[in-house]
């Protein structure tokens, strides 16, 4: 992919995501404190930590659903500034899956998937539908294409949401607690889909408490608490020899 001269002084970085000295406040509350992170292309990152620790907020800064007061986020070589064009350009290439699915209830499953390809990528309807069906087959629910989202189970809805994001052929996928709103028996079907996706070499950033998934898929695990990145490590080391006191405490709580 060619890279227009963006904020990085014309020098193309190899990073998919580059966050430096990011600070964010909600009113007087300091939610993100001095975040520095670089994610290589194709890397799979799992972010965990206690709730309210700023995980989702950081993730949402990457496609600028949240803005920030200080610091810099560069995605795919594009510097995220206030420039709406730049923001749209980043969002086009970054897929996102939400905790609450956020499918469009007034559109069928198929229409949910073709909306952005048609209106953002200006794809002919037929091509968009073929594309959508391909991804719906991949998440194994092609037979639901003509239904409305409310007719689907939570797990099916979340898989549609994944297909919808994939239809934009993103370079990076963001998952914001994709299984937290699901009934226990549906968690697996969504995780399986995500594991498959991880095999494709797409860059993934996943906020989740599913430690099994983290162990199986992640290249690195990030532990966040109180708005800071406390520890980053490879899964084996992270689980077997957590360095920070805070990380150890957290792992004890969720693994036992």
């Amino acid at each position: 992919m060619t890279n227009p001269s963006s904020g990085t002084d014309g020098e193309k970085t190899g990073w998919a995501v580059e966050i430096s000295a990011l600070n964010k406040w909600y009113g007087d509350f300091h939610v993100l404190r001095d975040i520095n992170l670089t994610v290589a292309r194709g890397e799979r990152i799992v972010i965990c930590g206690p709730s309210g620790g700023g995980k989702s907020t950081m993730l949402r800064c990457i496609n600028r659903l949240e803005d920030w007061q200080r610091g810099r986020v560069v995605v795919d070589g594009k510097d995220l500034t206030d420039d709406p064009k730049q923001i749209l350009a980043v969002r086009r290439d970054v897929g996102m899956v939400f905790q609450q699915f956020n499918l469009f209830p007034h559109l069928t499953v198929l229409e949910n998937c073709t909306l952005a390809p048609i209106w953002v990528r200006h794809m002919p309807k037929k091509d968009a539908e073929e594309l959508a069906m391909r991804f719906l087959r991949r998440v194994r629910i092609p037979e639901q294409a003509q239904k409305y989202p409310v007719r689907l189970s939570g797990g099916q809805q979340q898989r549609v949401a994944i297909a919808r994001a994939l239809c934009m052929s993103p370079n990076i996928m963001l998952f914001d607690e994709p299984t937290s709103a699901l009934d226990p028996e549906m968690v697996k079907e969504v995780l399986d889909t995500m594991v498959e996706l991880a095999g494709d070499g797409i860059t993934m950033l996943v906020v989740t408490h599913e430690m099994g998934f983290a162990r199986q898929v992640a290249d690195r695990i990030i532990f966040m608490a109180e708005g800071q990145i406390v520890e980053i490590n490879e899964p084996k080391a992270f689980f077997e020899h957590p360095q920070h006191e805070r990380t150890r405490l957290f792992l004890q709580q969720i693994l036992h």
Partner: protein
Amino acid sequence: MSKMLQLPLRSRQQWASIALQAALVVVIGGLAYGAFINAADNLAKAHIASGFRFWDNTAGFDISQTLIGYSPSTSTFGRAFWVGLLNTLLVASLGIVLATALGFTIGIARLSRNWLVARLAGGYVELIRNVPLLLQILFWYNAVLKSLPDLHSSISISGGAFLNNRGLFLPRPEFADKFDYVAAALVFGIVATLAVRIWARRRQERTGQPPRTLSFAFGLIVVLPLLVFFAAGAPLSFSFPEVGRFNIRGGTEILPEFAALLVALTIYTAAFIAEVVRAGILAVSQGQTEAAQALGLRSGSTLRLVVVPQAMRVIVPPLTSQYLNLIKNSSLAVAIGYPDLVQVFAGSVLNITGQAVEVIAITMAVYLFLSLVTSLLMNLYGRTVGIVER
């Protein structure tokens, strides 16, 4: 649960239920019968005719605003009924259009990120909703329009219009024969625009090019008729109102009663519509907007493709009842003498004929019918905005 226990209980309940229903029927029947006997008796004593023969009798009273031909000396009560009904429909339909426009504007303004805009819109809603409509109508009529200067010191408005306490006098357009071409061009423009839109949608499906038909629409609907208008030698003249000694001649007149009623209905109903719109937009969760933005949709497309369709489904049912309220509220015309259905029919006609039962029954039937038709139309519209899911 055991059937043996239930059976006797059931049958006792059934008997009680039948007895209760029979009693209800008897009571209502008795009341109706008594009312009928008494009414016949009272009407006979007062020498009031019954039945609908009055419909074809000569009315003999004047009406200040008539959309169809009407003369007090020859027209019938039936004609007066239609005049009143048309006046009701006129003020109600204009009111619905204006109140919708104003209401949507204010409802959206209430959600503005600009604190001052949101607060002003909120103040409007609170103030207007909490003051009775009748008071507002009286205010506009007596305190504003009736206190305008009289005929001889009419306020003249640029463009040849006059405003005084008898109403607003506007130039009346007079169309020459060639104006037909302009009208034809306009109709053509509208049809062609629709055709272009359909074509653009098809092309989008085929090639993916997004439909951009705004400039086409402008050219076809505005520019083309204007060109034809000038090419045909501007076939339009105006008859300007002139202030005479006792009245104003020429032009066309808007009654202060009509204006006051329309303004009050619009302003009042808009406050309620604003609340409906606000609730409808708030009902679309933040997550929907975020999901659309995360897919890279522009904010305009997000609104048009995701937020508005969902909001409309929430808005349509309560909006319908606001429209019904507006139609029913237009009957307050009677307080300031705007000749609507209630003022003409349940007022003048009732007073002259004395046939209260027939006149009130017809009036109520008309409003029931209007309510029914409006609900039906809005249901159809509701179906097109797709209340499919759920």
